[in-house]
């Protein structure tokens, strides 16, 4: 890593992340000191896990392409494993699942090579055709459609969608003088998280009318609108420092991330509700599973990627 080789905006972004972590840690420690009678373990755990998430993110973007691809591949692996551990799978498909896992290193190899043509069709076309063939060779037809449908959807969401984050890092840096290699990814992740947080805050303060009560009873119209507006404004404010987007393009990017982040969130909520679980897993103490944290990104990553790819690459 050569810290000074990063654009000043990227350096600032990491200092801000570090600062936010320090502030939230101090805040939670103070809270616990002021109210010794109350239980802040959950909050402390949550913040501690945030430190880990930011550390892994820094590892993923600050060193070199190989490390980035390995870290993002591993994140996809954890997400896919969490998904398969949640859904009902057929015992007969044991080896099919193994082949599905092998798609992860292959997909991230295309990313590492920056081979766009194969990256974009490998899972949607080739895995779509390969996995049912492998199932048919085993010959269990009872529950076939459900098994192949659930398996491929999971692969698309946890591997194909999320691998777009890594592909942002292999786009030609020359097209993005302001943000360099990592600017776009920081922009995407920052706005997606801001969107989650601001939808929550707007919803808590002003929210009344529920927006999608059957899937996610906590979500309100005010939270949704306030969140999207906040994300859109911030997107325009930050864009000149991290991306090649013009002001109008950045407003569009913010709107896209705000709307699709919400949809990603409620889509994973629908999955959990269908399966009757509260959290998708328990790998992130205080947060739940890895899909609970990545839910919005499963939508924002590919959509933002193609938006910027169309406009500037």
């Amino acid at each position, binding site marked *: 890593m050569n810290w000074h080789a990063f654009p000043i905006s990227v350096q600032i972004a990491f200092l801000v992340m570090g600062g936010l972590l320090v502030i939230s840690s101090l805040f939670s420690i103070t809270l616990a000191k002021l109210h010794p009678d109350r239980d802040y373990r959950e909050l402390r755990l949550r913040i501690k896990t945030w430190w880990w998430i930011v550390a892994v993110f820094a590892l993923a973007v600050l060193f070199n392409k190989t490390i980035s691809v390995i870290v993002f591949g591993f994140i996809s692996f954890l997400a896919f494993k969490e998904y398969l551990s949640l859904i009902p799978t057929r015992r007969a498909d044991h080896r099919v699942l*193994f082949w599905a896992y092998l798609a992860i290193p292959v997909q991230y190899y295309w990313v590492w090579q920056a081979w766009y043509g194969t990256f974009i069709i490998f899972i949607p076309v080739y895995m779509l055709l390969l996995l049912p063939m492998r199932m048919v060779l085993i010959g269990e037809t009872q529950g076939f459609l459900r098994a192949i449908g659930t398996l491929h959807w999971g692969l698309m969401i946890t591997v194909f969608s999320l691998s777009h984050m890594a592909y942002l890092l292999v786009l030609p840096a020359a097209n993005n003088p302001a943000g360099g290699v990592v600017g776009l990814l920081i922009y995407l992740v920052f706005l997606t998280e801001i969107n989650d947080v601001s939808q929550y805050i707007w919803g808590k303060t002003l929210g009344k009318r529920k927006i999608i009560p059957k899937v996610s009873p906590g979500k309100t119209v005010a939270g949704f609108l306030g969140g999207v507006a906040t994300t859109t404004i911030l997107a325009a404010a930050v864009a000149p420092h991290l991306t090649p987007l013009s002001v109008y393009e950045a407003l569009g990017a913010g709107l896209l991330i705000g709307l699709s982040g919400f949809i990603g969130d409620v889509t994973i909520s629908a999955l959990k509700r269908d399966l009757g679980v509260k959290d998708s*897993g328990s*790998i992130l103490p205080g947060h739940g599973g890895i899909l609970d944290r990545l839910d919005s990104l499963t939508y924002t990553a590919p959509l933002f990627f193609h938006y910027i790819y169309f406009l500037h690459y």
Partner: protein
Amino acid sequence: MLRHLFYLIIVKPLVLVILGVNARGREFLPEQGPAIIVANHNSHLDALALMSLFPLRTIKNVYPVAAADYFLKNRWLKWFALDVIGIIPIERKATAGKDVLAPLFAALDNNAILILFPEGTRGEPESMGKLKNGIGHILSERPDIPVIPVFFYGLGKSLPKGEIVLVPFFIDAFIGAPLLWSGNRKTFMTELTDKLAQLQSNAQKLS
């Protein structure tokens, strides 16, 4: 030494990274022997996953009890089972005039922590077969030894009986409070069966 390296370099990373165990009730695991861990048996990975829950300094004192007819059937497997995994072999069929449990008593008297699969063999995934009485025999002779029940969920999916390809899944481990000898073999076996059934129902509530 070999055993130490095996757990440090292969088992712990494999269980942590490829699988990933979410253990509830870890505080009930004994720090020193003598003690007996009793678990459901769905996969060859059961014993290794259980061992990996212990810190490395304790592992050297933990021994899975395994069938001699299976694990000692050839030279290489025997070497691997005894010197690398560190099993205590036991005869599944009783022979006249020979106490099949003698090696277990010897180990317990040496303050070992034993891992026992009282179903006797790997059963259907995530279920519990009928328990064998061996554990009752041991406890009637060594009534002070605590028995810690553990129910594993997910290993039967990762590497079921008859499969050689390991498929990654997150695993849930439910560890119960230690059971103490009730003074009667039959009531103790019933208590143990109930306790494992209760841990199993916790697992099913989650899935």
